[in-house]
């Protein structure tokens, strides 16, 4: 189980996260929702080690991993697909995946690329194309596949549906469901409430605080909540 316990984060004088706690049991998909500036991404970055929380703890299987930096977190099995996809546009799809496997032993790289591509067959057809030539949805798939290269036990996805057409958004969420079948714990940060359809548990943040949490199904059915915070 991955847990963030009462974490506080700030950027200089600006507070972004004010005492947020979340739990992601092993093999589950949890979804963090909320409007812009709610502190979703910052919470995720604190878990990934990109941002240091000012207070609070991040634990994995009960061990305190709050202070580990991004590459140590990755070795611990926590991988982040950052917001905005960040595909290396001039690199081929294969090289993007190789970069994702930066921490892997070189002779394991090829085998792992084949495994990851099995999950995203479409990428297999585009291996030698530059990442920048893929469509938005394909780029997001590549970003997720790249994050999976190190065989993480916890996958952190920062707004994977950002800027995608509805059909591509659906495909991204379907991919999350497939990843779940492999036993990977997933923390999904989203503004799109459709994400709840592939999640077990949802957290709704607002202005750096936890506003509401509950089973994903319930949140998805709560018309008022969705309209107030999640835009539809």
């Amino acid at each position, binding site marked *: 189980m991955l847990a963030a316990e009462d974490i506080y984060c700030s950027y200089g004088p600006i507070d972004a996260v004010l005492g947020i706690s979340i739990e992601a049991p092993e093999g589950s998909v949890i979804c963090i929702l909320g409007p812009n500036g709610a502190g979703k991404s910052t919470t995720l970055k604190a878990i990934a080690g990109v941002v240091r929380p000012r207070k609070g703890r991040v634990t994995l299987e009960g061990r305190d991993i709050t202070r580990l930096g991004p590459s140590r977190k*990755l070795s611990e099995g926590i991988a982040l697909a*950052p917001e905005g996809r*960040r595909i*290396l546009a001039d690199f*081929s799809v294969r090289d993007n995946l*190789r970069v994702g496997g*930066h921490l892997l032993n070189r002779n394991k790289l090829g085998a792992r690329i084949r495994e990851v591509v099995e999950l995203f067959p479409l990428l297999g057809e585009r291996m030698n194309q530059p990442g920048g030539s893929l469509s938005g949805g394909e780029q997001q798939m590549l970003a997720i596949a790249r*994050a999976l290269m190190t065989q993480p036990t916890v996958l952190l996805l920062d707004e994977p549906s*950002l800027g995608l057409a509805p059909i591509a958004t659906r495909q991204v969420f379907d991919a999350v469901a497939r990843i779940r079948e492999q036993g990977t714990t997933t923390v999904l940060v989203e503004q799109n409430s459709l994400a709840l359809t592939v999640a077990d548990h949802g957290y709704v943040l607002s202005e750096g605080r936890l506003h509401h949490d509950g089973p994903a199904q319930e949140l998805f059915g709560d018309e008022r909540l969705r309209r107030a915070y999640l835009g539809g």
Partner: protein
Amino acid sequence: MSELSLSAARRGALVKSIRKLPLGLRMLAIVAVAIVAIVFPAFEGSDSFVMYTATQALVYGLAIVSLNLLVGFGGQISLGQAGFLAIGGYAAALLAIHVSGLPIPIEVLGAGAATAVIGFLLGLPTGRLRGHYLAILTLGFGVAIPEIALNWTSLTQGRTGLTVPPPRIGNTIFPTPTELYYFSLVVLVICLVAIFSILASSTGRAFAAVRDSEAAATAMGINVTATKVLLFTTSAFFAGVAGDLDAHLQGLVSPDSFPFSLSLFFFAAVVLGGLASVWGSLAGAVILAVIEAETSSSSGWEPVILGGAVVLLLLFLPRGLADFPYRAQQALRRWRGRKPRAAVPPSRAEVS
């Protein structure tokens, strides 16, 4: 989104992928260049000025490739690359003077290593400095090195400079222009092989990943600061080797050997040749050496001609000389009345 598209646009303005010819044609071109480089002295060997210019082109080639490593492949900036050459040059001179019988490979490695140490130190602040600030830091470095050489007379002999003996292997010395040319060619080729291997390795991918997106690189477990420091160290190493070659070519290192303007010429040559293109940088080096040779009797025209060339190039070949073969091929196809094939930009790793 806006941040993403902005960074992509900003990058697009500086780093464009080099579009390339099919592999077969490229191999042919490389073999042709290699043959010309090898047999060249058989025709021009008697003309020591031509041989000097050709050797200078090789030396500049290594210097400009080392800068392109930093700028084109790594997305950093250095306006003081000649400072690295100066350190390599002085290190070579001091080693050759004070350690008699030092084998030349050790001297070259020593010059590279000494410069790499300075590159490492200069690279340390790059974790926090970027863009204009990094430009200013490296500019200051490039300006300061000749001044230090001028004033540290106990080590450098001040304005007089140090006389550099010709390279020697065992008891054989290589003083003639043709021998110096081949010496520089061998060192350049060895360095190019090393550079191509680095670029094709996971380290090369890390350089480019940091250039394209620090956020993505961090998420992939790449230590961004360490990668930048390594990039500076690597670039400085090869620039130091170029300084060693230059010291032997000139036979003298002095504070005037590596003026600040040289750093700017190198930078111009990187842009002229094409960012992230090793072959483009070598072409840029040839042009720089030729302009320098042609204007040697009318000093002051060098920057004018070089500046003019850069302006013209940015107008007509914005991706640099490295894009010329591709453009020429496309033009040829059109001329033959065939429809040009849709251009699929190559991947960055292939570019290396």
